[in-house]
């Protein structure tokens, strides 16, 4: 374990950014989101939840796949270069890291997404334990430990210091490259343990910590799908994409062409199952009502995803949707509604 004074973090960021791209929570126009570090960036490591998750670092909201140009009578296709330089995402949280593991299941299984894989291979994750979790957090429900992030480097903000613990080979490499700024932290284990106990004690007090996922699993498709509970639940849903775009695990995308002056740009961008043209095909759309779209999102997170991924849920309990839904709907309310009303026809 190592430590660095919080006051010296700027020097650390400068050192990391000197060799690699560095992304971290930055406040811009009043909101904190992950952004590239700059000398005058207003870094905010105390912000528990960035508005958007750090998902963009691996699966950006928008990315060019290739450009098509015609030169004389020849069609030129120029694929976008894959990420080939190391970069660091600093200040992720344990739930955010779990979010990346969910994305891995999607993009690294066959057929592998080469754009995503290149970013995953070159990305180094530095995650900070949550000193003060909040009422909208429920990561524990999904087996995430906010006190011990499972990243390349785990960090704890304790008093005036940031404690730094490399956990992987990538993490060791990053540590080596900034070693002159880090000091060995003798006896830090004890401090970290105390901090972890404090964090876990706070987690116990949070209103959502003991939410039960009973009945939500890969075998619940028919029971949950056919439940009448959805009919009232979805009503206030505006059909906007806020929940999907702030979510660290929503992974659906659309591929589109954009005409520019010098050719056609084929890009992909996040899509939202809340949108009316989601998965629209020549033959029409398989989900034509907001009820169906709303149901899809939660069925995917709590039933279809675990069915296809050895029981892994594709919600990590970060609580961003809890804080941001314009109609105050969210996955917790969905789970609770089923708890209260029984839900399935078999219950």
């Amino acid at each position: 374990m190592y430590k660095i004074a919080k006051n010296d973090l700027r020097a650390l960021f400068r050192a990391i950014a000197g060799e690699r791209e560095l992304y971290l929570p930055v406040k811009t126009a009043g909101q904190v989101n992950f952004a590239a570090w700059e000398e005058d960036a207003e870094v905010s490591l105390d912000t528990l939840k960035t508005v958007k998750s750090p998902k963009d670092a691996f699966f950006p909201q928008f990315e060019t796949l290739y450009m098509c140009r015609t030169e004389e009578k020849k069609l030129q296709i120029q694929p976008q270069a894959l990420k080939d330089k190391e970069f660091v995402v600093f200040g992720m949280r344990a739930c955010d890291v779990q979010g990346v593991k969910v994305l891995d299941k999607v993009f690294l299984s066959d057929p592998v997404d080469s754009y995503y894989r290149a970013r995953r291979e070159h990305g180094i994750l530095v995650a900070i334990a949550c000193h003060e979790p909040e009422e909208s957090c429920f990561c524990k429900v999904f087996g995430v430990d906010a006190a011990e992030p499972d990243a390349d480097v785990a960090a704890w903000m304790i008093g005036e210091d940031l404690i730094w613990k490399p956990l992987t080979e990538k993490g060791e490499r990053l540590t080596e490259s900034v070693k002159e700024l880090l000091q060995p932290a003798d006896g830090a284990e004890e401090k970290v343990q105390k901090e972890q106990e404090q964090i876990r004690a706070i987690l116990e007090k949070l209103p959502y910590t003991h939410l039960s996922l009973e009945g939500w699993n890969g075998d619940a498709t028919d029971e949950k799908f056919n439940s009448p509970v959805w009919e009232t639940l979805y009503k206030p849903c505006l059909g906007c994409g806020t929940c999907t775009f702030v979510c660290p695990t929503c992974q659906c995308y659309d591929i589109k062409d954009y005409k520019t002056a010098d050719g056609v740009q084929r890009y992909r961008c996040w899509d939202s199952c809340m949108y009316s043209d989601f998965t629209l095909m020549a033959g029409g759309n398989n989900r034509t009502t907001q009820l169906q779209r709303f149901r899809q999102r939660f069925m995917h997170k709590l039933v279809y995803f675990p069915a296809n991924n050895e029981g892994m849920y594709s919600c990590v309990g970060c609580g961003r949707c809890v804080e941001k839904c314009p109609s105050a709907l969210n996955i917790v309310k969905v789970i609770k509604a089923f708890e209260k009303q029984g839900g399935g026809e078999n219950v």
Partner: protein
Amino acid sequence: MQELITRAKELLADGTAARVLGWRRGDLPYNPEPAFFEKEEDFDQFVYDGFCGANLSKMMIEASKLEGKTVVFLKPCDTYSFNQLLKEHRVDREKAYIIGVGCRGKLDVEKIRAQGIKGIQEIEGTELDGPEELTVKTIYGDQTVSYASAMLGRCHVCKGKEHRIYDEIIGESRETKDADRFDEVRAIEAMSPEERFAYFKKELSKCIRCNACRNVCPACSCRKCVFDSTKFDSAQKANVDSFEEKMFHVIRAFHVAGRCTDCGECSRVCPQGIPLHLFNRKFIKDIDELYGEYHAGEDAESKSPLTDYRFEDAEPGIVGERG
């Protein structure tokens, strides 16, 4: 609040209405959601407090297509939206039984968080006849904040306590206005074009194209939005270049000009805290200055300055000269 429940139950029982549109209690102290109530027992979950900021007018578009009347609770500012929707033939007056509810400003949990408060467990004092101070109980200790300091920005420039359309009124409203509505616009107008561009660029670059502003907006009631259409290149789900997000917001602002009642829902719901109302308010100020003071939604009959022609109307050249 009990008075609202009692009256709503009466209107259901005597057959006046088939359902009630109000707010259901959330599972946190600050997240009630819009909801329909049809049965007596549904009302156990009914709530009306400071966090019921959602404007229910737009939900009356769908409710107007249902059998029977819907009792709807509208705050004074929400009634402007209802009137405007009525004027545009998007809602059916005969399908609505409007109970005008009192308002003393609506709360924004982000304003509470901005005061350094975390881990909220309970908030006391949010009711309509509550005190001027909120007691916020958190897992990190109790704190108090003034009600006014936790209000949505729009309530500081409140349009007034008067309901513009209603069948009956329940509850007293309180004055919340402590700033001029156009001060923010004047501050923007005072900027140089370069400063202004930089300001909006910084704000709009946060946009994630979630469409929350559009979907919540009572003036955005097109059945198919051009930005959802697959027939044009306009249906961009992401900002392909730096102009994209500006195009979306500027076009939206133009489309609702003269119809926007300044209900402030766009800014309330924006996950990135973009002050979207500024675009609309600038249009309102310009319309006021060019055509005389006009407030969309004040009534359901009068013509909007932009859809009406009069000899004394400002010539387009005036706008050009003025810059």
